[in-house]
């Protein structure tokens, strides 16, 4: 299973030709209690690095950028009604959307789990 990370703390977990996108545990922790999630329409075509969703805590709003380019093939319909799932299971049930990868090379510019850990250490 391939997981890649962005410097903005999104992850993409590659499952076949699809990438499951969400925010990392570090991001949810930093944000605090999530109270609102805005997801794109299924079918939307997204460019890498462009805003694809919004996540808000009591304190702040944050944009979620697409780690990879492609078409949105699914969104997590449970999130708008239970946004706290993002805090409870950011890498699991708290996923945001699935993108059908337009270009697998997009993954090359992202961090591996090991690289992301080193990156997080550099932030603290």
């Amino acid at each position, binding site marked *: 299973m391939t997981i890649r990370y962005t410097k903005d703390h999104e992850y993409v977990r590659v499952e076949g030709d699809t990438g499951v996108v969400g925010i990392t545990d570090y991001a949810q922790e*930093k944000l*605090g*209690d999530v*109270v*609102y999630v*805005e997801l794109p329409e299924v079918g939307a075509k997204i460019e890498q690095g462009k805003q694809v969703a*919004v996540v*808000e*805590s*009591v*304190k*702040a*709003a944050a944009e979620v950028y697409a780690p990879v380019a492609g078409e949105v093939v699914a969104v997590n319909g449970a999130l*708008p009604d239970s946004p706290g799932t993002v805090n409870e299971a950011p890498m699991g049930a708290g996923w945001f959307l699935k993108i059908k990868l337009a270009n697998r090379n997009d993954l090359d510019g992202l961090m591996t789990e090991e690289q992301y850990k080193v990156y997080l250490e550099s932030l603290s």
Partner: protein
Amino acid sequence: MADTASSPLLATPLNAAHRTLGAKMVPFAGYDMPVQYPAGVLAEHNWTRSHAGLFDVSHMGQATIEGPDFATIARALEALVPADILGLVHGQQRYSQLTNAEGGILDDLMITRPATLEEAQYVYLVVNAGCKEADYAHIAANLPQGLRLVRGEDRALLAVQGPRAVDVLRRLGCGAVDLAFMRAGWFDLAGHRCHISRSGYTGEDGFEISVKADAAEALWTRLLADADVKPIGLGARDSLRLEAGLCLYGHDIDTTTSPIEAGLQWSIQKRRREEGGFPGAARVQRELREGPYRVRVGLLPEGKAPAREGTAILDPATGLPLGTVTSGGFGPTLNGPLAMGYVPPTHTAVGTPVHLLVRGKPHPARVAAMPFVPNRYVRSPK
């Protein structure tokens, strides 16, 4: 999230206590302050509404104006604020504003007349942390001969807020439980001599407790030992005050907004409205007579998207801008988004539809009455 300030941050006497509790610390008004504890903003907010929250608000400025007699001090203060200070009875507290010559607000503050006759002649002030240096300079520069401003740098300020706050103080045998809302006095609390007022910034019943800095941690620990008390950070303090419809200086009120625009006319008593005699009185009196050009209103988005500070408020009929959101977010007790902002007097009726421009998209909202969550001040204690 707030940026790290370049100048060294100040610490309250409870800084170490916050860190021990695992607080997430952020820079706020020049201070290193707890934005939340491990429980998180939602849990802290809800705990305050259901039990009792303990807040460190020692960053706020505590000062006294001292002089030969109360009337002299009150008259000097009335030259700076629109509230009736001469009319304060012993132990009474009032909310007011320091106004500028244009009727804008330099800061908002609490003003208290001491409870007993025996004490030295003074009036006690609590001002905002971010404004205190400017406030003190402004007040000191405008005091007549024989009066002086004394900064209370050696004091901490704790707030216990929520429906069980009174039980917490009662269990400690504190006489402050007999105070009514906006009354204050000196009391013994857990062996410490404290100046306690029945007031706060959450819409709940509660107390603000001024104590010597070197006793702050002992008192904090003692209060936290009560099972009904949990520590609450600045994050929940903001969502609580927003639901209570209370202004945050520098956001909902500033040097351009008048007390009348901000809907604070209740804080200007009749004699002062008629007599004036405070900075910017001409504007305040004109706005009382003719109405202001804009008014602070509550806003309830119809969807779930929070509208944050700076969001444009649009006329749904024309798409033209009406004003701007000055505070907005998610209300945990309301379980939905809420905001406040300024609109023209034509759009202040409760229920008036507006649009809020969130990330380029107009979101329907309605003008709403404030407070958003009913306040529970105790005006006549049993």
